[in-house]
């Protein structure tokens, strides 16, 4: 079964066309990489899948587990297993990581008619995951992303991912801003989450992460479309040659 299927997807942001007919499908258990130059619409694609209100679908279809995503609210998409790791995670002053994590986790459990976890049980549940990411316990009491370094924010996204265990994880430049050790930690985290039940779309600019997390397929987004798809060799070619050679194909 296709977890995600995009057919001729057209999206505008503030009336400006950004995506002009994206076709893409992702099967259960697959991990795909999405590459493309700055401003080509990668984040827009991630956002429209998560339901950001500013992204308007003007034509085409987005199917998630054979269900049309368009009428579904962002929160329901999330509770149904779509997770977006943000390129620029936002700061929420005064709200602790713990609080957001607990509310998110329990919202999902309510949705699936499972009992909510109380504060004690939740912390125990969280402990292994924070340890795995090398995050100190105090981390949880800090306000969400406030004053976090770029790399810390990305680790925080990964912590949320590990907690929420989505069916479809879209990770928008989860590797940017990470030091070498953190990159390995994040890669290990992603690999640990790979399963036949879970699909992932990794948005990245460099094959560095892909070397540690081998993708099933690599796509290049240009001119608001998936221009080209291939394997790891495509990622390497882009690293060496950039996007210039593809430009001609756009026009």
């Amino acid at each position: 079964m296709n977890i995600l299927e995009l057919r001729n997807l057209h999206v505008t942001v503030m009336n400006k066309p950004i995506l002009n007919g994206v076709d893409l499908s992702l099967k259960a258990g697959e991990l795909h990489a999405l590459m493309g130059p700055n401003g080509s619409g990668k984040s827009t694609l991630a956002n429209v899948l998560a339901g950001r209100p500013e992204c308007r679908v003007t034509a085409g279809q987005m199917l998630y587990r054979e269900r049309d995503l368009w009428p579904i609210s962002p929160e329901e998409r999330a509770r149904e297993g779509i997770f977006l790791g943000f390129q620029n995670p936002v700061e929420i002053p005064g709200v602790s990581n713990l609080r957001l994590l607990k509310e998110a986790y329990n919202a999902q459990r309510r949705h699936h008619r499972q009992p909510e976890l109380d504060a004690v049980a939740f912390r125990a549940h969280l402990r292994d995951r924070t340890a795995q990411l090398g995050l100190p316990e105090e981390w949880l009491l800090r306000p969400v992303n406030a004053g976090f370094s770029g790399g810390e924010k990305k680790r925080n996204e990964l912590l949320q991912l590990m907690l929420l265990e989505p069916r479809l994880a879209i990770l928008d430049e989860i590797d940017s801003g990470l030091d070498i050790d953190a990159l390995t930690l994040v890669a290990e985290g992603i690999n640990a989450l790979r399963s036949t039940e879970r699909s992932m779309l990794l948005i990245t600019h460099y094959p560095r992460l892909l070397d540690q997390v081998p993708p099933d397929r690599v796509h290049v987004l240009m001119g608001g479309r998936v221009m080209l798809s291939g394997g790891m060799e495509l990622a390497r070619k882009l690293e060496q040659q950039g996007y210039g050679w593809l430009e001609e194909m756009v026009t």
Partner: protein
Amino acid sequence: MNDRPVITSAMARSYKHGFITPIPSDTIQPGLDEKVIQWLSAKKQEPDFMLEWRLAAYWHWLGMTEPSWSSVRYPPIDYQAIRYYSAPRSANPNAVALKDVDPALLATYEKLGIPLDERLTLAGVAVDAVFDSVSVATTHQKKLAEMGILFCSMSEAIRNHGALVRRYLGSVVPPGDNFFAALNAAVFSDGSFCYIPPGVRCPMELSTYFRINAAGTGQFERTLIIADEYSQVSYLEGCSAPQRDRHQLHAAVVELIALEGAEIRYSTVQNWYPGDAEGRGGIYNFVTKRGECRGDHSHISWTQVETGSAITWKYPSVILRGAGSSGRFHSVALTNHHQQADTGTKMIHIGADTRSTILSKGISAGHGHNAYRGLVKVLAGATGARNHSQCDSLLLGEHGSAHTYPYIEVKNRTAQVEHEATTSRIDEDQLFYCRQRGLSNEEAVSLIVNGFCQEVLSELPMEFSVEARKLLAVSLEGSVG
């Protein structure tokens, strides 16, 4: 629009304390004149000095006009249409044990989450329960008395601790201070009294829970707290009222006196009935709260979470008379639907090296109107005085309004006064982030608003900050589409 009933019922659901206790009560006819005051004073078996004090305030009040400088708008109040006294017939002014209190009253407080049975109360909290015009019970009095702490209703204090009352009552808020304070001085019916002897650190939170029950009455309570030298006390006030279509007036006065080295922390969680989604009904809350740091190195802090009332008009203030004394004001005011709040503080620096801090968080949802009004005044003698003020406003939706009116008067050149203000709309990126993690729009708004208020909420005693958070969430219901 056929979504109106839905909104109204959502609002009805959200005010959980809107029930009425059916209980026979002694209520006087509407109207106010000298006879009413004489009757009231006699009813309470007050000494002569109190009657004279009340009458003087009444005469003063007759010559005053209702203040019009604030930004709140409401139709004229007919002071002759208000009943100035209502008490449950069963209220027993001499009740010493809980078994002497009417079970219907106990049940009311139980339902409000304030059990008066000492075995069931929150650990470490003593409660004075005021029902309409009278105090019906005060818990833990014996235990407190062992340490010399007096905690009782105002009526009892007037009867039994006349000398203290006479010395301090009206010494911070004089009877003629302002229109509502003068009215209160003339007709106040009960409230709480508290005295902490020198060097004593009060071992429990003291609190008063005000309940308006009867229709057509006003509640006029008066609270007096005296912290003698080097004593400490933390005090909390809560309140609620039934859901009614008619407005009801609440005009209270609170006076705090901190002597040398003493510390008073006063917290309020104000949850008077706010009216319905269309602005019908709700409490008009006109309150004068003022503390005086009378002794050197004394400290007074006000923390308030204002979510209720149709109109809130209050400016808890501190007179910093003692050298090195300090005052703080922390406030969250949330207005939803058609609620109006004009609230803030006055910090009057008289003594040398006095310090004050103001932190105000205003949230406007629906057609809510929210104004911060604050005065920082540094007198000529207040060498080295310092103030820092921070006023943040958050707007939810398109129809609410937020205003900041900071007044600063500095007569001493060594003083440092800083004022910062921000106004923002709720951040769409934050909302989307939370929703992407599975929170509903309403849960996301509530979480973000809670974060916005965090610094103030963390000033509340633990048990109450949890309550305040829930109350904020409930008060925001129906504020987002």
